[in-house]
């Protein structure tokens, strides 16, 4: 087996046994990056020197008791890394170098993780395809003519093509789970407040979460253990104790009650192949002794609108800080006054989709329309949360497709924002409710991976990891990546 194909767990075993060194592992992955990047384009910044340097010092410490020590990873480019460019894949921050680490990065550094670089994303995490990046489009490792999904497409593609052992992404409306699904890897969106958001450029502060993208469920549990927990720098982070996720991975799901929201599984946007793969997964759970029943999330049809309004309104406020005054892009053309300065700086610095959302959001959150749109969206949110609460009174978990279809072609349907957003239906409803959810491979359609989403109760990450683990133990979808991908 090639080193870059290792999982966190395997690599850690070899490092512990001194069969490999962190430097060897890092070098191998850097070579893999050299080999793949011209076709995949998963990265926007690669820090060879930094990665090798920390691999060397980790080897010198020779302490691999922490499963992440010496393991090379990458982070989405909206997660701030000290002294390493963090651009949000926008012209606005093209040369921005943060003087601080995001909390998730500091936590990983403390564990001697090796940071390889920063991965491509939709500009400011707005999008579902990684096509709106200022730099380039990332290709799906399963089919180079297709998108990897978004907005954490670079992270998902990097994991799927073995250009890192694991990656971090951000998930505001499905941006970890959707690309994980398109790229045939595991992506977890934790409960809102489970993982610190400090140092991650905000998109919609009430929905943003940081989550791991990994090669299998075990690795996902390992990374989540490292990044979860209360952070004094993030007032919205929760003080609920962090479970021992790894210990709870047991192949025993007998008697668990699983609900299948019919509004999501039988939605017209869900393709036949995807539906079949999910139904097949349900069969697997039934065989393992779970009780699976169809249920109704009766207000699911309003979720997409509520999500879009919330996203646009919050994003328009969050993105105001990029004004060219203190840092970032500043117009080089002449301007007449302050207003003209802002117009030119922001007009030139932001791409189309970002501007589309800012303008929509500005309108939606204006004093005049606030009650009509933003407040109404928040009311729908409360109703949807209640629907989930009801469902979780009866069921331990809910299962849906992660995405209605498999990865679409690059350039396809990107001129229709609403249709693009329908791809996010099953995932974004989870962000509205703030719940944890995982996506893992559950089948294939015409050679492209299909994702299964498991939604849990708030802070029951241990539960969804266990349910996901049980499924993974009973098929080989997660290992086909190595055999069937294009690169």
């Amino acid at each position, binding site marked *: 087996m090639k080193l870059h194909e290792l999982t966190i767990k395997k690599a850690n075993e070899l490092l512990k046994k001194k069969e490999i060194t962190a430097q060897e592992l890092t070098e191998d992955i850097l070579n893999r990056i050299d080999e793949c990047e011209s076709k995949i384009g998963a990265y926007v910044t690669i820090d060879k020197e930094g990665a090798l340097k920390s691999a060397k010092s980790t080897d010198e410490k020779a302490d691999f008791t922490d499963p992440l020590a010496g393991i090379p990873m990458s982070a989405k480019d*909206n*997660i*701030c890394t000290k002294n390493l460019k*963090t651009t*949000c894949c926008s012209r606005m*921050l093209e040369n*921005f170098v*943060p*003087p*601080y680490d*995001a909390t998730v990065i500091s936590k990983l550094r403390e564990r001697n993780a090796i940071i390889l670089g920063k991965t491509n994303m939709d500009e400011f995490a707005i999008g579902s395809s990684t096509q709106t990046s200022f730099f380039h489009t990332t290709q799906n490792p399963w089919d180079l003519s297709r998108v990897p999904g978004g907005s954490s497409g670079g992270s998902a593609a990097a994991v799927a093509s073995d250009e890192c052992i694991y990656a971090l992404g951000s998930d505001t409306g499905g941006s970890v789970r959707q690309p994980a699904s398109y790229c045939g890897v595991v992506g977890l969106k934790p409960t809102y407040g489970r993982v610190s*958001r*400090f*140092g*991650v*450029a*905000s998109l919609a*502060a*009430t929905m943003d979460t940081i989550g791991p993208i990994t090669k299998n469920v075990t690795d996902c549990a390992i990374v989540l253990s490292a990044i979860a927990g209360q952070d*004094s*720098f*993030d*007032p*919205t982070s929760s003080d609920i104790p962090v479970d021992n996720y790894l210990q709870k991975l047991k192949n025993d799901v007998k008697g668990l009650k699983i609900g299948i929201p019919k509004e999501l599984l039988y939605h017209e946007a869900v393709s036949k192949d995807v539906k079949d793969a999910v139904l097949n997964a349900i069969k697997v759970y039934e065989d393992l002794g779970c009780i699976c029943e169809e249920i109704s999330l009766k207000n699911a049809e309003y979720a997409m609108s509520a999500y879009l309004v919330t996203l646009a*309104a*919050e994003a*328009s*406020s969050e993105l*105001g*800080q990029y*004004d060219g*005054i*203190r*840092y970032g892009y500043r117009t080089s053309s002449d301007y007449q006054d*302050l207003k003209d300065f*802002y117009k030119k700086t922001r007009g030139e610095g932001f791409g189309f989709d970002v501007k589309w959302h800012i303008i929509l959001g*500005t309108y939606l*959150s*204006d*004093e*005049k329309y*606030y009650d009509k749109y*933003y407040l109404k969206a928040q009311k729908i949110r409360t109703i949807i949360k209640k629907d989930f609460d009801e469902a979780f009174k009866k069921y331990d978990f809910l299962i849906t497709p992660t995405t209605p279809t498999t990865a679409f072609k690059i350039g396809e349907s990107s001129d229709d924002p609403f249709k693009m957003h329908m791809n996010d239906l099953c995932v974004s409803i989870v962000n509205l409710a703030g719940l944890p959810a995982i996506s893992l491979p559950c089948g294939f359609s015409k050679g492209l991976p299909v994702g299964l989403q498991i939604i849990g109760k708030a802070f029951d990450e241990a539960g969804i990891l266990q349910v996901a683990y049980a499924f993974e133990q009973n098929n080989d979808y997660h290992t086909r990546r190595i055999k069937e991908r294009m690169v």
Partner: protein
Amino acid sequence: MKYESVIGLEVHVELFTKTKIFCGCSTEFAADPNTHCCPICLGMPGALPLMNKSVVEFATKAGLALNCQIADFSRFDRKNYFYPDLPKAYQISQFYIPLARNGYVEIEPNGQKKRVGIRIMHMEEDAGKLVHEEGGSYSHLDLNRAGMPLIEIVSEPDMRSAEEAWLYLNNLRTILQYIEVSDCKIEEGSMRCDINISLRPEGSEQLGTRVEVKNLGSLRAVRRAIEFEEKRQRDILENGGTIDGETRRWDEAQGITIFMRGKGSNRYSPEPNLSPIIISDEWKEDIRNHIPELPNVKKERFIKEYGLPEYDASIITASKILANFYEETVKYYHDPKIISNWIMVELMNVLNETGEGIKDLKFTPKQLADMLIMIDKGIISGKIAKDVFREMFKTGKNPEEIVKEKNLIQISDEAELENIAKKVIENNPKSVEDYKNGKEKAMSFLVGQIMKETKGKANPQMVNSILTRLLKEI
């Protein structure tokens, strides 16, 4: 037609907590530009606000001192707008659910007690400062002030004149200084005031169109701006015009208000990164227990307890430090009115002359009391005491020491004074004759001569009686 002014004030007060409202940066005044800044106050990607608990404490204290109801649940919102000194393009403020409501400040225009209502009082962060380059085509930006904790106090439109507004601001400032939440220095920007003013026909209940005046740099400017606006708006109305609802700024040099901008709408949205502010009854009571006696209560007490005239009491209690100084002196000296006289006259004089503040006083209440006792004991005369007082003010030395050093002890020796008196009588036969002819003035001239002879040290009562006796004998 006669018009009546309807005036409301919006006052921003900087709280002097040690650190900023949402980060650990120092609030020190006049530091080098951009030295008290961090990713949070600079609005950098991913930076999140962290609530400073002492800001909530200070603000609650202010709310209680202003007789407000404190909300047990309040929340922060964002006010979204673009300006270079506003790093995040939104200001974190309280809009939908503020910390405090329904308070009042008492004023006494023309000796009549009146309450000016406080509609709301909320917490917010300050913006940075733009420093415009003289004659240049660019501006400097200092973000030390960005994130400084403020409270905004919005009054009801209860004031009817510049005088009432001035009294309200003065009392507001005194209260906030008393409870030690702010130094309220208008000149240094730690207290800032916007005026809302409209005119209506006298007797009308309806409000006229409101004009906002911003950028008031002193109490005097507030007064002048109101007077200017009253006249400007009256002139327009009397000529059949209508008032535009606009924002104007005060130009100190020209003494006029100038159009700044028309009415615009604001964008508010809940601040998602901060938890709601929950204030328990215990916490509130604890804060309430730390509120010292407020100026109006203290004033009434001084009148009752020390028998001071209302005027003295209001001047002495206008400053907490002065009031404390006074009360401390009372402990060491029996006559509160005499202490008040010395403070009202001599102390105020030297403070005015030197421009120093009460808090810089070098001498102690005990020393002042000792000096007054020396007068009573006849060791120094009242006149000499004035010199002693000035020396105490300058050096902080004990009065006994000053008297000794400068040889100021009063001459109370009967024989010595009689000798001097005799000499003066001998040298001034004209005055003696005038006195005999009933001219009382001549007596004081002779007393003056004796004082001159003794360099003011002669015991005045003794001089009087000795002179009277000697003149009678002639």
